[in-house]
């Protein structure tokens, strides 16, 4: 069981950590949303790579093939991608409104403006 035998998991973990770290460390709200997206994509990759069957082909029945990849995780992720798009759209819409109300999209500046009397 070498490191590369499960490289898909390692990739997903690395991406997830990049995403989470971006979300926590950046004060810019748009960058936070970018981090959130990276985090979500890592989970999508985890799911999609789960569906792979060794030597499998696309799941369309045809003669000469016996091994097919599992399409179900892909379909699930199709749904999750839609959810992710909706979340991103809503987050960006909120950022637009935050920018209108505060004149900035930096979290620390927004907080500073709220603390002013």
């Amino acid at each position, binding site marked *: 069981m070498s490191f590369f035998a499960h490289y898909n998991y390692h990739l997903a973990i690395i991406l997830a950590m990049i995403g989470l770290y971006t979300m926590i460390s950046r004060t810019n709200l748009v960058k936070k949303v970018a981090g*959130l997206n990276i*985090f979500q994509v890592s989970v999508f990759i*985890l799911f999609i790579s789960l569906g792979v069957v060794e030597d499998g082909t696309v799941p369309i029945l045809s003669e000469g093939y016996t091994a097919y990849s599992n399409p179900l995780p892909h379909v699930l992720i199709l749904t999750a991608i839609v959810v992710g798009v909706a979340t991103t759209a*809503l987050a960006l819409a*909120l*950022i637009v*409104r935050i920018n209108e109300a505060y004149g900035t999209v930096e979290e620390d500046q927004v907080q500073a403006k*709220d603390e002013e009397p």
Partner: protein
Amino acid sequence: MLPLIVVVPMLGAAVAALLPAGRLPWLWATAVSWFMLWAAAGLAAQAMDLGVLSYWMGGWAPPFGIEYRLDPANALLALLIALLAAVVLPYAGPSLASEVPERKTPYLYAALLLFLAGQMGISVTGDAFNVFVFLEISSLATYTLIGLGRDRRALTASFSYLIMGTVGATFFLIGVGLLYALTGTLNMADLAARIPAVAETRTVHTAFAFIVVGVCLKLALFPLHLWLPNAYTYAPSAVTALMAATATKVAIYVLVRFIYTVFGPAFAFGDMPTAHLLVPLAVIGLLSTSVVAIGQGDIKRMLAYSSVAQIGYMVLGIGMATALGLTAALLHVFNHALMKGALFLALGCIAYRLGTTQLAVFPGLGRRMPWTMAAFVAGGLSLIGVPLTVGFISKWHLVLAAIELGWWPIVAVIIVGSLLAIIYIWRVVEVAYLQPAEDPGRCEAPLALLVPTWILVGLNFWFGIDTRVTIGIAERAAAMLTVGLNGGAP
């Protein structure tokens, strides 16, 4: 009937978005919520008779198709959501009209109905991935609704809830994915049957950890509650009442469902240190947020912190891993929705008349708004846990469950928590009744707001005196969920 309870509010949301701005979307949403109550009551009665109701989406048999499944545990929850929706929506019309611009009403009620559809979907579905989808539907609607608050801080509150809520939901998704990788199924009943065979693998342990942490973010278990106080404080009053009463309760249900049904109590409490994690966090959260609540100047924020504390009671009941503890947790889910609903509706009346819920406007309010403040006091008594109210019933069961286990320090914690509740409710009562008003004019809220508030207050006493229905359902649900607890757990 079972799918209709989700489909009707979902399609109703689309219709609401198309209606002209004004009173029409509100009337439509109210009609939909009453249909939901009627349907939920019928379904709950059937579920109690038959034990389990099952519906196969598109006719595909589980575990391959998506199954909607109603048993006593989620029948109680579906009834709770529908009941609160049917009471809060009539109230929402006048209350939201004063807080949200009229041109936004179609989208506002579309979001409210989507929120209800999502909540209902989570409670009736028997499919793990479906839970994620409905969780996101209701969460996205919630973010929108919070963002409609008058204060600009509503926007930042909504944004931080969006970030944390999405992380929570994605954690949940990771857990579901790992379970699917191992068992090849997403149906909860099927998962429950297959997990014991692979329970010793690290994958299941990881999946369990991801799911529990993700759901705990959604239900605002201390210390994952940071999104909640701001979200509750700045959301429009009627939205806060509905959210406080149902949103976290549904997340509690998901936690119960996954711990007790999918993973099974033997795994969750035997192989995994769930109790050692949930019980201390519940206790710390219960005490610390109660103390924080005492110092709040905004009463809405005070009740938000109190909500986190009350969630501590529910998680405590879940962490006890006994039938009695789980009964108490489920009872408190139902009862807390009634008391917090009543309290937030009373606050909504005050916000309607005075435009704010800061403690500074409370002096003399006992005479200026006698009915509203009386409702607040009654809800407060229930929150404290005075006999004849629902708060007493659930806390009494929780104390009994703790005594059964011999957890005497926990009994003390529950009592101290109630004492802290007395302090923060008394603060408000003292200011409202004993301090003179600057402007002594009467400004009672209109009947359209008072009637729903008092209906919830009445239910607080009704279910506090006649406990047959709630305890009956909760006991059956707990007995069903804890099957195998005594056999497997070490």
